[in-house]
């Protein structure tokens, strides 16, 4: 079970308090009418699905009820950062394969 630092509350809490909300930084097109059907479909449904770091949107559903972003590794599940909406992530390179942690590494 993930342990997630809520950047609004300033505390780490168990995943049970949170709800994942998909890929982060998917901006709604400013002029939907200018989008083709295909572009609108891509906005709604096409997502990055990497093995590696991914920026995700989370909701502190049973906490402050605020959304925030997390950069999480999709194989190790390590969360390398969480940050508020509107802020930029510090980590974004994606790696193909997980970097195994040495024994005793910190969470």
């Amino acid at each position: 079970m993930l342990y997630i630092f809520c950047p609004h509350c300033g505390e780490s809490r168990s995943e049970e308090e949170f709800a994942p909300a998909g890929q982060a930084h998917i901006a709604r097109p400013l002029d939907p009418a200018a989008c083709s059907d295909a572009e609108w479909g891509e906005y709604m449904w096409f997502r990055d699905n990497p093995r590696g770091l991914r920026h995700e949107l989370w909701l502190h559903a049973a906490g402050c009820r605020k959304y925030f972003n997390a950069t999480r590794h999709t194989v190790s599940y390590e969360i390398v950062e969480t940050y508020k909406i509107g802020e930029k992530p510090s980590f974004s390179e994606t790696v193909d394969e997980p970097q195994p942690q040495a024994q005793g590494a910190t969470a």
Partner: protein
Amino acid sequence: MQRYSGFGLFKHSFSHHENWQRMWRNPTPKAVYDVVIVGAGGHGLATAYYLAKVHGITNVAVIEKGWLGGGNTARNTTIVRSNYLLDESSALYEHALKLWEDLSQDLNYNVMFSQRGCYHLCHNLQDLRDAERLVTANILNGIPNELLDTRQVAEEIPYLDCSPNTRYPVLGASVQRRAGNARHDAVAWGYARAADALGVDLIQQTEVTGFRKQDGVVIGVETNKGFIGAKRVGMVVAGNTGPLAAKAGFRLPVESHPLQALVSEPIKPIIDSVIMSNAVHGYISQSDKGDLVIGAGIDGWVGYGQRGSYPIIEHTVEAIAEMFPVLSRVRMNRQWGGIVDTTPDACPIIGTTPVKNLFINCGWGTGGFKATPGSGHVFAATLAKGEPHPLAKPFSIERFHTGALVDEHGAAAVAH
């Protein structure tokens, strides 16, 4: 192919079983194939088998980065059913179910398909409406399905708590009696052995690292053991679809999520069918070995770790204990996770891709195992002809552009 039978076992027992042949070869890859299939899971192996058997295309390689049948084929809860709501999906799954019914004989490999019935429990009035909708839709499509009331459910499923005192009392159930279970590993091995016998090369421990293209047309795959040429390439890599599609240069409406399952210790037979409850969130069957096989929910985040979050297991076990309170003292032996490729409408993507001669079969979500023969069959036809099989047509990628979704997901209506 060495034929299997009870008599064969008897005969081989005199030679201490020292003369059984390999089930499949370990071939060296050829320079070029008519068709290269990436991924030797159940779907990929079935595709290869039907390419050879139905379409006579035997110059085929199946390339697998690990061991064959080692992905979701090895990790699912083995349920087979075709009682889907929408015409497009029920046609596809029923096509598969019909193939399941003769599969052991077709492959000369006992995949232990047993049609012990699958119940969908109803716990509220909307569940009952949905069940009526499903059952009558199936009947119109020639797929027998029945609706039972609480008393009938209680009679047919002995230890299910059908009392009115439960949190969500059982109000009825739909039952597809032709549904059931199969032995998951046997499906992969049976297809592998039969495909190999028809000349298909199964190339294990070889990872596809990229696609070689010429003028936008795929001409083969790069692997960690060198280039393998192909006239057509089929990608059937559940759990790895996103990263491989990225290597081919396109994006999909697919996210890969952990899906967990668990088994109890083996116990004497107590549950004779497949029982599913959407409202209470649990489903259960019992394997021939005696394990209670229990499917848990899907984690909401992308994960390739073949493991999910513990609360999902907890909620599932709570649901099972609610449905079958007598199981409270039975013990959970093992839990695990697979990686499922989910799509927005909970239906697969089968067909062409933005790269010419590269075809895709993915997005089976939580329900791929049951489709294995049908998926392989229609994908083989798609690869053989270069255009989607009629049953596969509604499942193109383009539907996410036009909006013509096959929305099995949404058809399971929300509460009101």
